[in-house]
């Protein structure tokens, strides 16, 4: 009886496996059979098609989601009878990308998808999208309005693959009130690690019982920050010219600068100048807005939330993202997320409709609305010149720091950022090393080396999986 059972079981599993394989196979075949390739159609593709309805998958929640809804409604009203965009919120960036992967398999992909910066390599490798450059070439669109540093991240070999949309860069945020109280000048914030330590010594306050009531500095052990320190030092984060000359094979985690950074961070914690925080930025944000830490690192996107939640409690100042060494000559990477036009399995009308929508979102007026209602950095130079935007910045002088910081950042492979298929894992690995060094007291170099070593597997795995 046992053998019969086994035979039945094996038979069942084989039958089911072929069924699954067939289902997947047919979906792929359909996609290729449809008109959808990855070339950009001309404007005429929409003629005589009636109202083309397209889906847009995004990861914008809260007020960002509301602003996106507002812009989309605006676009739909303007294009009534021609294009209708359906917004679909997909939770986090991770989930959005997972859903996109799944949808490519089942042939239910959206027409436009928002993907975080570190998903760029994957999106290119998926060969499922129409590069924005193709539309630009067909339409002879003028792209000079797009901030070159922002476009830089999404360009490979001078070809723009996706349209940057929501971008942000990191800043140093300060509790101005605490600065003044400590006899520091908030208009002259620390620029290097050493200067942070110095300021933090003055900012740290203890109560009678020796308990720290205000730490000088405190930020999440967020992998993105490490990438930013690297770029600020004009260093590349992965090999092959930050993955832009060829497919990257290693993440450069165990560098002298990183060791110096983590040793410094650990020392800050040991001296009681910084609390132990994890990699979740919300926790650090709360610590800052509650007044528990006087300096923190966050993206420009958090300014609005900070201002609201600290209203009436203390004033907020900003400074350039600090540098590891005084001589560092780079600047932060302009991260965030970008919009991809899906080509696989899509007919020309849909591709064109998607491009029209993407173009609309990148336009200076849309970007001004987007910037002023979300706090994300506008990708359009012109947006900063609009009246509404100027007013907004005037009310929030803290944002001026970001604009200046961007203008002062040279565009190089280092500040373009690392492109790597396994970049999401690499960010996580960096966080593991940061946590090991700062929280568990592992030797920084050993912690970084261990994670650098650990990353070679997933990178190889990814590079192999691209080949199939």
């Amino acid at each position, binding site marked *: 009886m046992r053998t019969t059972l086994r035979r039945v079981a094996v038979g069942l*599993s084989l039958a089911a496996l072929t069924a699954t394989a067939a289902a997947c196979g047919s979906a792929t075949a359909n996609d290729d059979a449809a008109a959808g390739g990855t070339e950009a159609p001309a404007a005429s593709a929409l003629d005589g098609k009636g109202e083309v309805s397209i889906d847009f998958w995004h990861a914008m929640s809260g007020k960002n989601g509301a602003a996106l809804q507002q812009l989309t409604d605006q676009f739909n009203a303007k294009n009534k009878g021609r294009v209708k965009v359906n917004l679909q919120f997909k939770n986090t960036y991770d989930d959005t*990308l997972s859903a996109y*992967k799944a949808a490519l398999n089942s042939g239910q992909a959206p027409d436009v998808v928002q993907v975080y910066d570190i998903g760029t390599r994957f999106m290119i490798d998926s060969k499922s999208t129409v590069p924005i450059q193709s539309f630009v070439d067909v339409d002879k669109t003028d792209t000079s309005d797009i901030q070159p540093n922002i476009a830089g991240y999404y360009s490979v070999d001078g070809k723009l693959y996706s349209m940057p949309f929501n971008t942000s860069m990191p800043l140093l945020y300060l509790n101005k009130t605490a600065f003044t109280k400590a006899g520091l000048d908030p208009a002259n914030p620390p620029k290097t690690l050493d200067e942070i330590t110095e300021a933090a010594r003055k900012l740290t306050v203890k109560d009678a019982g020796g308990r720290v009531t205000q730490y000088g500095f405190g930020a999440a052990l967020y992998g993105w920050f490490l990438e930013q320190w690297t770029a600020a030092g004009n260093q590349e984060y992965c090999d092959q010219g930050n993955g832009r000359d060829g497919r990257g094979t290693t993440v450069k985690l165990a560098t002298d600068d990183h060791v110096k950074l983590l040793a410094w961070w650990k020392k800050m914690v040991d001296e009681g100048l910084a609390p132990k925080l994890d990699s979740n930025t919300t926790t650090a944000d709360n610590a800052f807005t509650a007044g528990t830490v006087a300096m923190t690192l966050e993206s420009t996107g958090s300014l609005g939330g900070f201002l609201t939640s600290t209203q009436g409690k203390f004033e907020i100042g900003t400074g350039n993202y600090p540098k590891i060494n005084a001589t560092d000559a780079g600047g932060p990477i302009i991260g965030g997320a970008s919009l991809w036009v899906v080509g696989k399995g899509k007919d020309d009308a849909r591709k064109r409709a998607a491009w029209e929508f993407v173009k609309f979102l990148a336009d200076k007026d849309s970007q001004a609305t987007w910037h002023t209602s979300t706090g994300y950095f506008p990708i359009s130079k012109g947006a900063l010149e609009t009246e509404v935007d100027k007013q907004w910045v005037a009310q929030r002088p803290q944002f001026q720091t970001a604009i200046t910081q961007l203008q002062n950042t040279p565009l190089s492979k280092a500040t373009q950022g690392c492109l790597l298929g396994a970049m999401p*894992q690499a960010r996580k690995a960096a966080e593991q090393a940061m946590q*090991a060094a700062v929280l*568990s007291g592992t030797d920084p170099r050993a912690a970084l080396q261990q994670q650098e070593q650990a990353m070679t597997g997933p990178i190889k795995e990814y590079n192999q999986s691209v080949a199939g």
Partner: protein
Amino acid sequence: MTAPTLTATGAPAGHVDRPPEGARRTARPARAREALLGLLFTLPGLAGLGVFVVFPLFQAVYLSTRGNDILGNPTRSVGLRHFHELLTPAFGTVLWQTLVFTVLVVVPGVLLPLSLAAPMTQRLPGMRIFRTAFALPFAYSVSAASVVWLIMLNPGVSPVNWVLGLLGLPAPNWTTEPGWAMATVVGVTVWMVSGFNLLVLAAGLAGVDEEVLEAARIDGATGPRQFVSIVLPLISPSLFFAVVTTTLTALQALGQVQIMTDGGPNGHTRTLVYSIFDNAFHNNNSNFGLASAQGLVLLVVGVLIAVVQFGVLERRVHYR
């Protein structure tokens, strides 16, 4: 306590007598029909579980030997490579932490509610209110409990830290210190399961004869011992039930780890199930092969525990 009133059947005693002569002759076909009917009755359940639990296990075996393309579709065979990847100290740590987590959840997760339910058997005013109150954590889903506790322990605003400060105690780094992070995730899980287990154990105790309970707590010296030797066996079905369900909850726990520590700091709260999730769905991973291999390990662990619990522990349970 036996099942509720059975008078409805109203079976006269005479009917329980041995069946008449003729019954023995029809025994064989009746047996067959009964067996067939038994199969028929179990079929819906078997079908549902077969398609969505048993069959996927075979698929998991298949997937565990495959590499995949960037969309996660299985491709070339990689043999036992994924299983080789499990023979590392890192995965050993994951298994160890899973065990630690499970034990640390099950023991206090059953004992704490027992220590609350036992005194509540006294006929004192307000006990029902206490029972309701202690059952409240049962209302929390994993995500709700995790998020609320994150707010409770958030270093910037933590009311818990504030209380510790009043007592002159230093506030631990709840989610960022390796040992504490595990303790925090364990604590939240214990909190969550305590509500359910309290109801289960209180119900069990309610079924114990009042006089036995009284006898067990007549005086402080012999009370606890009698509680262990007399009352515990009487509520052993409830205890067993609580232990089994809590073990499952702990072994399958994912939400608390993922939401509260995301496996950190530096992997110190990484459990087997978290690891599966991490490899398959997290951070744009789609290493379905490795995740499937780990899933099979989890299955083995689960079956081993089931065998121990039902083969060994259940023998000591006194069903009435």
